[in-house]
């Protein structure tokens, strides 16, 4: 059972790694912002599987933290793009 669960965790991580190809290639920055979503969901799934496979309930807490921080990272990605699009009030006035 443990082997199956770790295998599933590896498969999901491999899927997330494949998805990273899209993040690297872009073509737009919006594609890049999905990185935290991709790794957040995949990482949480992999960690939950590892927690059950290794009988270590505290790993569930790591998954919980990862879920919170992936959400925060997404907001940080979006913010850094927006603040660049309109760096100051002068730039908006020029438009």
């Amino acid at each position, binding site marked *: 059972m443990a082997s199956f669960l770790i295998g599933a965790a590896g498969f999901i991580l491999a899927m997330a790694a494949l998805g990273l190809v899209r993040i690297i290639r872009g073509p737009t920055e919006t594609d890049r912002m999905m990185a935290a979503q991709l790794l957040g969901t995949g990482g949480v799934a992999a960690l939950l599987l590892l927690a059950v496979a290794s009988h270590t309930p505290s790993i569930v807490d790591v998954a919980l933290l990862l879920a919170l*921080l992936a959400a925060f990272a997404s907001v940080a990605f979006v913010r850094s793009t927006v603040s660049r699009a309109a760096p100051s009030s002068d730039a908006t006035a020029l438009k």
Partner: protein
Amino acid sequence: MTVALAFDIGLGILLLAVAGWAVAACSTYAATIAFIVYGLLLAIAWVRLFAVDVALTEAAIGSGVTGMLLLSAAARLRVIEPAAVAAGTPLRIAVGISCALISVALAAAILFPPDVVFTLAPAAMAHLPESGLGNPVAGVLFVYRSLDTLLEKAVLLLALLGVWSLAPDRFWGGIPGLQVYRQRNAILIFFAQILPPLGIMVGIYMTWVGADHPGGAFQGGAVLAVMWILVMIAGLRDVPPIGQRWMRLLVVVGPVVFLAIGLAGFALAGAFLGYPAGYAKPFIIVIEVTLQISIAVTLGLLAAGPPERIQPQ
């Protein structure tokens, strides 16, 4: 066992690939995203090394807060990015070779371990029950090596002082230059209203379980800091000016309480940072709770940066 090893090999290759991307990416923005992804993956690697406490810290501080700091700096510095001149190829090759040599030397140290494995785990476990704690890492941090932890708090405070002192004179006591959403975004505001209550609960939970299970004041404080930053970014609450008294009090309350209990140790237990027998756990909980508040505020202010404008009257 072979499945687990295959998992570790895959994770290791992925880690190295993402790290390579972070070093080699063309744009700083892409490199920073790679760094955040790397941090999330590294947390999984720490789990595989049976270091759950470290995994929590790496995810919260190593990836979360550091990544956000680098992202906002990258967004600001983007205008001058093309100006940088890359190093010449011969230099890159030479540096590459020397770095590879260093890696090989370290790898050799890993591949040929000493015959006698040195460990402090039995010693740490032997006296852990006296402290009332169940988590050996918390035991090391707050009982055996509490001086390190106290000094680490001093480092955080000094870093904050250093960041603040970079402000131009006219902005001293002003508002940190954390970039917030100029136009209020309804979705983001909704997010910043709904996530922090959950996050605060998780942060307090992290600190509370830290006594017996992986977790603790650092991880909990980092979660609180992240939630505070989210609220400030969304524009729900203003970034407070650094001159504000309540905020400065919150920044120092943890280290001051820690130091006070440490000094009280001279009278109560006969040693600096000693706890009176039987009362170790209540003292440690008081230290952890106040530290968590201070860590949250300090991390948030470090991420917000030096003051860049003064409070409008």
